[in-house]
C-alpha cells in the first residue's frame, strides 16, 4: 500500500514540463546534507550506546523522509501547476504582446498592466485637472499705485475642488505604490523565496530544534509562489466582472502662456476681476462628475488598494495554515500590518 502511494506521488513527475527548477538542486543538497548528519548521529549513538540518541536520530530520519516527500510533491506541483491550472487562467489574461507561461508570469503581467493603466490615468488627472485647477485657483487681480495695493483673488474659491484633487492624487499614488510593491513581492517570490528559502526551510525542518523556522520559511515560499499569484489573478477577474468605463476627464479651460497678459481680459473658466462665485461652482461640478469619479474610485480604491489587501491577506492566511502543518506556530499578524 505504501509503495502504491509512493508511486502515485511520483507519477506526476513523468509529465513534468521543462521549467526553471534551480531550487530543486539546493533542496536536494539540503535534504541529503541533513540525511548525512543524522546518519552520523545514528552511528554515534551506537558508539556511546545511547538508545535515546538512536530514537531521536531515527525520528529525525523520518522527518528527512517527509522532507524528501515534500520535495517530490512540490516538484510535481510546480511542473504541473503551470500547465494544468494556470493554463486556463493565463489564457484568460493573455494580451496581444504577452502570453504568460506560468502562474507567476501571468500574475506579473496582470500587475504590470494594472500599474501601467493606473499610471496613465494619474498623468491624465494631473495634466487635465490638477494643473489647470491649481493655476486657475492662483489667479488674482492686482492694482497698485504709489504704495497702495489692492488684490482681488477672485478665483480663490477654486482651491476647494483643487484640494480635493490633491487628496485624490495622494490616494492614487498610494495605489500605485501598493501595485508596484505587489510586483516586487512577485519578483522576490520567483527569484528568492522559492529558489532559496524553500530549500533552506527543508534543511532546517529536518532537525527538531530548527523545525519551526524551517516550516515557516517553507510556508512563506509556497504561499507567495503559488497562492499569492493565484489570488492576484482571481481578484483581477473579480474586478473585471464589473463593466466600468475608463474615467472621462472634464474639459477645464485654464489660462495659458499664449494669453495676452498685457490686457486685463483673462481667457479661461475664471476671471478674477468678475468675483463671480459661479466659477467655483462650475469647477466643483467638474470635479464631482460621476464619469470621472466613479471609474477612478473603482480602478484605484477597489482594483488597486482593496484587491491588493485581499491578496496579501489570502497569502498570509496560507502562511499561517501551512506553518502549523509543517511544524511552526508563528503569529504572522506582523506581516499583515504591512498591508
Amino acid at each position: 500500500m505504501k509503495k502504491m502511494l509512493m508511486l502515485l506521488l511520483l507519477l506526476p513527475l513523468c509529465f513534468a514540463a521543462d521549467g526553471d527548477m534551480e531550487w530543486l538542486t539546493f533542496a536536494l543538497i539540503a535534504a541529503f546534507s541533513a540525511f548525512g548528519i543524522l546518519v552520523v548521529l545514528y552511528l554515534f549513538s551506537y558508539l556511546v550506546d545511547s538508545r535515546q540518541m538512536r530514537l531521536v536520530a531515527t525520528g529525525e530520519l523520518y522527518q528527512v523522509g517527509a522532507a524528501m516527500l515534500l520535495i517530490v510533491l512540490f516538484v510535481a506541483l510546480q511542473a504541473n501547476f503551470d500547465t494544468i491550472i494556470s493554463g486556463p487562467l493565463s489564457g484568460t489574461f493573455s494580451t496581444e504582446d504577452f502570453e504568460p507561461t506560468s502562474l507567476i508570469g501571468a500574475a506579473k503581467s496582470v500587475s504590470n498592466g494594472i500599474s501601467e493603466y493606473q499610471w496613465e490615468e494619474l498623468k491624465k488627472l494631473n495634466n487635465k485637472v490638477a494643473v489647470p485647477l491649481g493655476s486657475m485657483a492662483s489667479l488674482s487681480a492686482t492694482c497698485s499705485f504709489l504704495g497702495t495695493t489692492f488684490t482681488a483673488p477672485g478665483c480663490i474659491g477654486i482651491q476647494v475642488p483643487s484640494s480635493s484633487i490633491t487628496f485624490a492624487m495622494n490616494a492614487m499614488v498610494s495605489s500605485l505604490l501598493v501595485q508596484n510593491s505587489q510586483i516586487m513581492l512577485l519578483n522576490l517570490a520567483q527569484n528568492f523565496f522559492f529558489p532559496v528559502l524553500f530549500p533552506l526551510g527543508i534543511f532546517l525542518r529536518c532537525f527538531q530544534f530548527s523545525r519551526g523556522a524551517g516550516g515557516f520559511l517553507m510556508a512563506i515560499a509556497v504561499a507567495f509562489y503559488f497562492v499569492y499569484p493565484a489570488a492576484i489573478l482571481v481578484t483581477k477577474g473579480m474586478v473585471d466582472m464589473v463593466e466600468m468605463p475608463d474615467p472621462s476627464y472634464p474639459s477645464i479651460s485654464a489660462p495659458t502662456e499664449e494669453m495676452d497678459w498685457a490686457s486685463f481680459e483673462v481667457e479661461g473658466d475664471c476671471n478674477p476681476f468678475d468675483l463671480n462665485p459661479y466659477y467655483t461652482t462650475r469647477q466643483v461640478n467638474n470635479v464631482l462628475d460621476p464619469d470621472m469619479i466613479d471609474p477612478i474610485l473603482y480602478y484605484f480604491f477597489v482594483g488597486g488598494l482593496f484587491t491588493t489587501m485581499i491578496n496579501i491577506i489570502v497569502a498570509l492566511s496560507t502562511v499561517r495554515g501551512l506553518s502549523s502543518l509543517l511544524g511552526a506556530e508563528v503569529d504572522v499578524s506582523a506581516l499583515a500590518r504591512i498591508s
Partner: protein
Amino acid sequence: MAVDFNEIQTLSLLAAGITLITMGMVYALGTLLNNPRFTVWVKTEIFQVFVSVVIVFVILFAIGLIGLDPDADFKITGNWLILLSPGAEEYIDEYDTVFEVDKKYLESLAGFDYNALTGARASMGMYDEFSKYTKQPCQPGWLFCMFGANGVSIRPLSGAIAPMQGMNLLMYTTTVSYLTVLIQLAFLKFIKSGLIAVYLPFAIVLRSLPFMRQFGGGLLAICLSLFLVYPTLLFVEAAFWNPESIVDDYETSREEVADVSNNELDDRTVYGIGSFAHPGEWSFSKTIDSLKHVIKLCSAAFIVSTFLFTVNILAAAAAARAFGRIMGADVDISRMAQII
C-alpha cells in the same frame, strides 16, 4: 566588549567539574543517610550537567562558525556566498565572516533605500518649487513697475501641490524603510557585542541552576535564535541581493531617479517678473514622468527593507519557540516585528 571564548570554554569545564564534585558529595551523603531523594536528584542533575556542557560546546562551535571567535578553526565565510551567487562578490570579500557579510549587505540595502529616499525628497522639493513659481504682472510695461504691480498674477504650476502630496507618502514610506535598515545595523551590533558577551554566559549559568533552569533555557533559546538564525538569514539574503532581480528595468529607473536627485532636468524654467519675462514651458512633464520610477524604487525599498525584515524576525521567533521547547520554556519573540 571583547570576549575571550577560550576562557568561556575553560570556565564552563571548571564549572561542570565543580558541579560534578558537588553532585558526588551529595550522592555520598544520600547513600550514607539511605535517602533515595538525594540519589535520584543527583542522577537527574548529573544528566543536566552533561547537557549543559554539550550546549556550551555547541554554542561555542556555532559562535566560531559565524565568525565571532577569531581563533575558530572552521567558519563560514563570504566565499560560500560567492559560490552560491557569483554576483555577491561585487560587495563581499571572500574572507568576510557572517556578521561582516550581514553588515555589508545591510549597508548596501541602506544605500539603495537612501537613493530612493533622495529621489522622493528631490521630487517633492521640485513640485513644491514649481507650485510657487509666480508670474507677476507689471502693466503697463513701459512704466517698468515704478508704481508697483498691476494686472493678473498667476502661479501656473500651482497644481504641482497634488503630486507633491503623493510624494509625501513615498517619502514617509521610504524613510521608514531606511530607518528599519539602520535599526537592523544597530541590532546586529548589539547581537555581536551585547548579547554574546552578557546574555549568553548569563543564560548558561542560569540553566545550570536547578531552580532557574526554565528561565535560563528561555534566555538561551532567545540568544541562540537571535545570534544564529537571524544573522544566517541575513547571510542568505546577502547572497541573492540584487536590485536588478527585484526591480524590472532597474538601470533605467535608477538613472531617472538620479537625474531628479541631481536636478538635471531640462524642463525646469524660472519665471521672471514683468511683462517681458520669458514664459518658458508651463509643464513639468519630465518630473512627472520620473515619478513612475521613484514609485518603483520606493516600493522596492519598502518590500526588501520592511517585509523581509519581518520575515526574518518571525523565522527567528519560530526558532526561538522550538529551542525554548527543547529547553523547557515557552518563548515568543514575534512581537519584535513591532519595531517597524
